[in-house]
């Protein structure tokens, strides 16, 4: 997963480059949560363009980050899905 933070727009982009299942999602989740707390962005984008496999673990991860965003009382996270 590659993380990019755009200071001007307070935009945090996670580009996921691996398959997402219950095994790999733990790492993705841990890194994403760490970066979100570090940057406190206004907007978070998950880019799934390079994701060749995803099961319900990925759905859970996105819903989980969404809830976390609400907790942090930030603007809703945009999720860019392309598959």
């Amino acid at each position, binding site marked *: 997963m590659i993380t990019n933070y755009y200071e001007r727009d307070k935009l945090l982009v996670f580009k996921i480059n691996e*398959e997402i*299942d*219950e*095994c790999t999602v*733990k790492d993705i*989740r841990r890194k994403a949560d760490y970066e979100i707390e570090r940057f406190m962005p206004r907007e978070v984008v998950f880019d799934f363009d390079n994701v*060749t*496999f*995803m*099961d*319900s*673990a990925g*759905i*859970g*991860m996105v*819903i*989980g980050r969404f809830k976390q965003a609400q907790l942090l009382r930030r603007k809703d996270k945009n999720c860019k899905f392309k598959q």
Partner: protein
Amino acid sequence: MKNKINNNEMKLEFLSKSNNEAFARISVAAFVSQLDPTIEEISDIKTAVSEAVTNAIVHGYEDSMGIVTIICKIHENEVYIEISDNGKGIENIEMAKQPLYTTRPNLERSGMGFTIMESFMDELNVQSILGLGTKVTMKKKIKQTEEIEDMPVTLEEALRG
């Protein structure tokens, strides 16, 4: 000559470690590739296998270690997949199969596993005995691609994802 292998069978046994999830779905995909499935059919099967295997590991065995067994059979153009564990079992199968139902919401589960298996495969059957384990069986017909213009998946493509 294509489509001459009409019956085949394999069996896999592995430890309930989550890094075996990818191994399990890729192995089944590679085995099924002899039927010349489309990329979409392969990806449906991989996702369904991943859901059942993850359930065996996460819910069946929880924090303990056990063996997950996969039996995969090919009969004509139909794939039969059986995934079983000797874990804790399911108390109420009908309830477990409901969309969004999960006993572990704290782990960010979406409760979509059985719903995904049901919609990606033609048939889903769940058998379980509390304390003894769970067996999930699924079937899917692979459309014959001879006449269709669809590109069949090669073994290399299936392995790559």
